[in-house]
């Protein structure tokens, strides 16, 4: 099996939302908006497509189901392997950000030197 592909932002944010504990669909949508500071607005179709795939891959599972005001509410949680994949992705992003930061510092120094 080849190297895993980088996770796309909505998937990363959904898993990050679930890293805080089991949540239902609408809870995930609002949490993703909060985590991304309004930058990502998930819609139901996108959310459930992502949840289906994450469940199929064993990264997310159903925690419990409730009926609230006559409506089905299904809670999802990260699996152990889901938490590991999220941790790996966070490490990868951190490493990339670190390289970017270091190079930007070098670029800023170079620009400052060129300007003087």
């Amino acid at each position, binding site marked *: *099996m080849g190297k*895993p*592909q*980088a*996770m*796309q932002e*909505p*998937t990363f944010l*959904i898993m990050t939302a679930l890293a805080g504990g089991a949540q*239902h*669909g*609408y809870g995930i*949508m609002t949490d993703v908006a909060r985590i991304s500071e309004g930058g990502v607005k998930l*819609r*139901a*179709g*996108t*959310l*459930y*497509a*992502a949840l*289906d*795939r*994450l*469940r*199929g*891959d*064993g*990264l997310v*599972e*159903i925690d419990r189901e409730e009926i*609230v005001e006559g*409506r*089905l*509410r*299904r809670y999802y949680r990260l*699996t*152990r*392997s889901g938490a590991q*994949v999220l941790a790996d*992705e966070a490490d990868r992003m951190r490493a990339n950000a670190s390289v970017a930061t270091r190079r930007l510092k070098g670029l800023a120094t170079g620009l400052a030197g060129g300007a003087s």
Partner: protein
Amino acid sequence: MSGSDGLERSYRRLLAWYPADHRRVHGEEMIAVLLAATPPGRRRPSIADTLDLIKGGLQTRTRSGRSDGLDTGWGDTLAVASIAVPALLLIYFAMWLWVGPLQSASTFVVLLFTALPPVLALLRYRRTATLICLVPVLFLGFLAAQFMAHSTWISGQVAGLFLAFLVMALAIARSPGPARGLRVMNGWTWAAVCAIGLAVVIREATVGRLYVQPGVRPGPGWWIIPLGVAATAAALALLRTLPGPVGKRLLVLLAIPAYPSLVSIVAGGYAATPLHRMIYLPTLAILGVAAVRASRSPRWSRS
């Protein structure tokens, strides 16, 4: 009709873009989420929500072969296999306690190697569960190789058990696990699995016993008719009780370990022609395809 009723009906119409299986599992849940996310006073779905649902529905319909939810994809098939295959093996090995080749402590060891993996997987020790499955795989693989190299006798039993443990290892390693399988299965699915197990047990306890008697090599006989009828009924029951393509795919997986036994029965236990010595090739090819399909299921999802 109130505004919220009209809105709900509009959302339900949009969910028609999704496959029926998906709607059955997620429909009510999605309606609840859509209504909760709609600003008060809105009477119709927004254009953005409409396009998002159409896109999601089309993606779900065209994502055949990928694991995506309760009803579709190899994820659920392997999840069901991760509990159904050990269940079948347990029924089969339980027979050995009173009839069969191993009426000794060995039977309990085999039972342990069969029962432990799904239990460990349920307790989330998936890696350990897979490794335990691989112990009988290696042992039986060695035995099968010995038969292939040094004997004209082909053992459908050894080959079948080798492949059954291999399927079980694959299912436990690559699926969402037995807990998911238990959720997908219902009482009738269990009845079908038990019927398959009992059909094999009855065959082994009657005709199969003759093979261990010196000089007796019964070919296919009358018993193959009720066995075939029982197997067909159980297969139809699996198709009817498992959602979406899960039933069909489970039958493909179960055919992998069943195939060598069938060849062995037809050949009367002997490799009458060189073709019979190729007993593993078709079934290994199917297993290879299944493994490739499972491994292509992306570890990291892309949305």
